[in-house]
């Protein structure tokens, strides 16, 4: 498993475990923001949404947008 594959697995795992949160996308985004180092975030932003669950993809998209000032 390479690093990006591992990050996809981690993001999906976080999304699955936060699925019962009131606002799962925000919860996943917050978790990744709080615990992933900048390079991990950049790698998953650059990767796109392939292999990501809808909630994980939306959360990562939201973080990427925030970083890009969108």
């Amino acid at each position: 498993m390479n690093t990006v594959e591992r990050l996809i697995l981690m993001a999906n795992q976080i999304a699955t475990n936060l699925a019962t949160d009131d606002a799962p996308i925000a919860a996943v985004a917050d978790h990744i923001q709080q615990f992933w180092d900048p390079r991990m975030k950049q790698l998953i932003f650059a990767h796109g949404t392939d292999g990501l669950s809808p909630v994980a993809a939306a959360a990562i998209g939201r973080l990427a947008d925030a970083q890009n000032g969108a």
Partner: protein
Amino acid sequence: MTYQPQKDFGTPESRSNEAISLTIDGRNVTVPAGTSVMRAAAEQGTSIPKLCATDSVKSYGSCRLCLVEIDGRKGTPASCTTPVEPGMVVHTQTPHLAKLRKGVMELYISDHPLDCLTCAANGDCELQDQAGAVGLRDVRYDVQATHLGQEKDHSNPYFDFDPSKCIACSRCIRACDEVQGTLALTMEGRGWDSKISAGFASDNFMGSECVSCGACVQACPTATLVEKKVVEVGTPERSVVTTCAYCGVGCTFRAEMRGEQLVRMVPYKDGKANRGHSCVKGRFAWGYAQHQERILKPMIRASISDPWREVEWDEAFAYTASELKRISAKYGRNALGGITSSRCTNEETFLVQKLVRAGFGNNNVDTCARVCHSPTGYGLKTTFGTSAGTQDFDSVEDSDVILIIGANPTDGHPVFASRMKRRLRGQDGRPGAKLIVIDPRRTDIVRSPHIEAQHHLPLRPGTNVAVLSAMAHVIVTEGLTDEAFIRERCDWDEYSHWAEFVSQARNSPENLQPVTLVDAEELRAAARLYATGGNGAIYYGLGVTEHSQGSSTVMAIANLAMATGNIGRRGVGVNPLRGQNNVQGACDMGSFPHELAGYRHISDGDARRLFEDDWGVTLDPEPGLRIPSMLDAAVDGVFKALYCQGEDILQSDPNTAHVSAGLAAMECVIVHDLFLNETANYAHIFLPGSTFLEKNGTFTNAERRIQPVRKVMTPLNGLEDWEVTQRLAQAMGLDWNYSHPSEIMDEIARLTPTFAGVSFSRLDEAGSLQWPVTADAPEGSPIMHVDGFVRGKGKFVVTDYVPTDEKTGPRFPLLLTTGRILSQYNVGAQTRRTENVAWHPEDLLEIHPVDAEDRGLKSGDWVKLASRAGETTLRATVTDRVAPGVVYTTFHHAVTQANVVTTDFSDWATNCPEYKVTAVQISASNGPTEWQEEYEALSTRSRRVEAGIPAE
């Protein structure tokens, strides 16, 4: 200080609040009701002769030496079994008593070898003392038959048993029963034939159920049970109180010394974590400190294929700093990182994370708690507001129901297990607490002498969350919650959301039984008992955290405790049993890449500014890399240098092949340790470490108790570990000038609100302090969340069961779970270098008889243990302690390297590895695996030292 044993009051302390006044030898004394006359006398400084009494066990009244006279009473009652009464007038020294005592002593001495001058206990023998105290001058008996000349039992590696010196006082038996709770010893025969026996008459100590805790040796009033070290070197001449460096119980010991030589470690009766008890590791297994394989000189090499070259400290620091600077300049500051150790002191850990944040200029610092209790940090902070257990160890005395999940305290936390067992057995007419054990294995505490769990739920590994959801389902749907507590202390909306979730039919025990393999009725009964049985206390270990849902399980536990009102007072709570001695402290000290000391997120500008102002640097507001992410980044070629203090990640972390690939990809691996450990096979710089006996500092145990570690001998390597880190920081240009670890603690206290009232002088005064130690709680906080949760309202979190991605299948049909054993500690670097190998010389694979038969295996056979990650070989032991489909082993031996087979799967929130669930296959084997052969060759190559002197 001249050597003095700790004062022995003869009988245990009474907890009564009622005060009783009496007169002893003309002096008034006031003591709690229930105190014995013997103890009352001892408390006023009067020493009544005694032999069968000692204050660690209940009075027995057999030796007839402690007789006293009491006005208005006939005869001469034994002072150890006579409770004080108001107005009682006691005489401890009268001519009549003197005559009686002398007669008793004469009989004892008539059957005791008169070899005092050459006896190991000479000068430290109660029989000798009492003979002197009663004025015995001769023995009139013409002795025809004696117990002298019996064969000694030398079988235990740490102590001898000489039955010829035994006075049959049974203190050892009672210590084994009451203090340790193993009940290994007995009195064989009656009257003249009475003889202490370990187990059956055919057993010696080593062959018996004795766990070598040392309680019997400590209780023995003669040299019948005596430490081999005392026999070898003589009695100590001074003592220093310090803290054990093994598990998270954090026992206080007296290091008893002759000069700079450690003679023995004796558990300290005033130690608040251990209350005078010990286990085989802390009491005896400290020989590694002087082991011949210790590395005492720094060593460097350009490549791991080169032999090591010994250098002086100055060269080592200059070279290390130049390498770190070179790599930072070439690859950027984020290419560097560090790992702090849960085996090192708070002060040392604090300095390593400070070096990384302030010196390396990033937050790439992590700690071995990553692979054990990081989910505790996440789970308890989320639900309660702080990352720590809620109780002190004494709290268990008030528990009515004890729920143990994913912990094996008799092996992992033996001294606390003895406290727990004492409560489970009941005492003085008070019935014992009820016990629920949730564990795939039938651990020893499930059924042991006088203890039997009311409910053992042998769940399928990986289904903790499902079991806890089912328990919550029962508690909520059967109306067993504590609504008043929840309404007052917790967020009601969050509770309602959670209650609605767990009430769903899919979370019922019956529905989840096919998943968990736990009988639904048994689970219902366990849930009812926990909710309604009185004070319910949960104790958990790595069987909770080391799963893909480790953090969820911790939160599910917290949910249960809040729902039943079992938080905020003695006897209840949520209690993580920490693995290593300073896991709690390492976490407190800001060892995680996202947190500063005191669990404040690195993105918190106010907290960061506090450190920036104090340290005169700018800190990176982004979290750094966790250990597994460091290894990923290394394999990717962007992480190049690691300072690893007191950890052996190659042996302890999962998926050894991935760890070794990460380490091999780095240009500068600095190992700071006692020995050339497995990680050092991939190291370029070795900085020799110091043992806990050679340095000052503090450890923080599982109950948040900050305890002093005191230097009792000069470091063999020349420097304490904090000095090594400081010298490295100075070589990198940092202006650090600590002259003593107390100054580091002052800095910690200045920057960490929960440590605000902590200092070495306060610790010296109090003995120990449990954080938070603040202006509001200057004496510390034994129980947390008393008037409300740290976060305000307790937070219920919905924890839905998510099956792990690690699946069994035709190729890997069994589930492996790993753990540890009493006599060994973690990766075994310390305990393998002691006589403890006598109990556990190799890792063994436990396999159920059905699974063994299917594969044609029997106990003692070599087997191949294979997973999707790798394979190793070890010997099997066939046992029904594990369920069919489950196998178990330990990870103490580098030869086995159980982590070759564990996978990269980890906890969703913290990346704590999923050690407890690996799909494996077991088959017969006739030799080591390819990995084992290659690794052995690598180790031999890597441990060469220039000039042909082997380092190990």
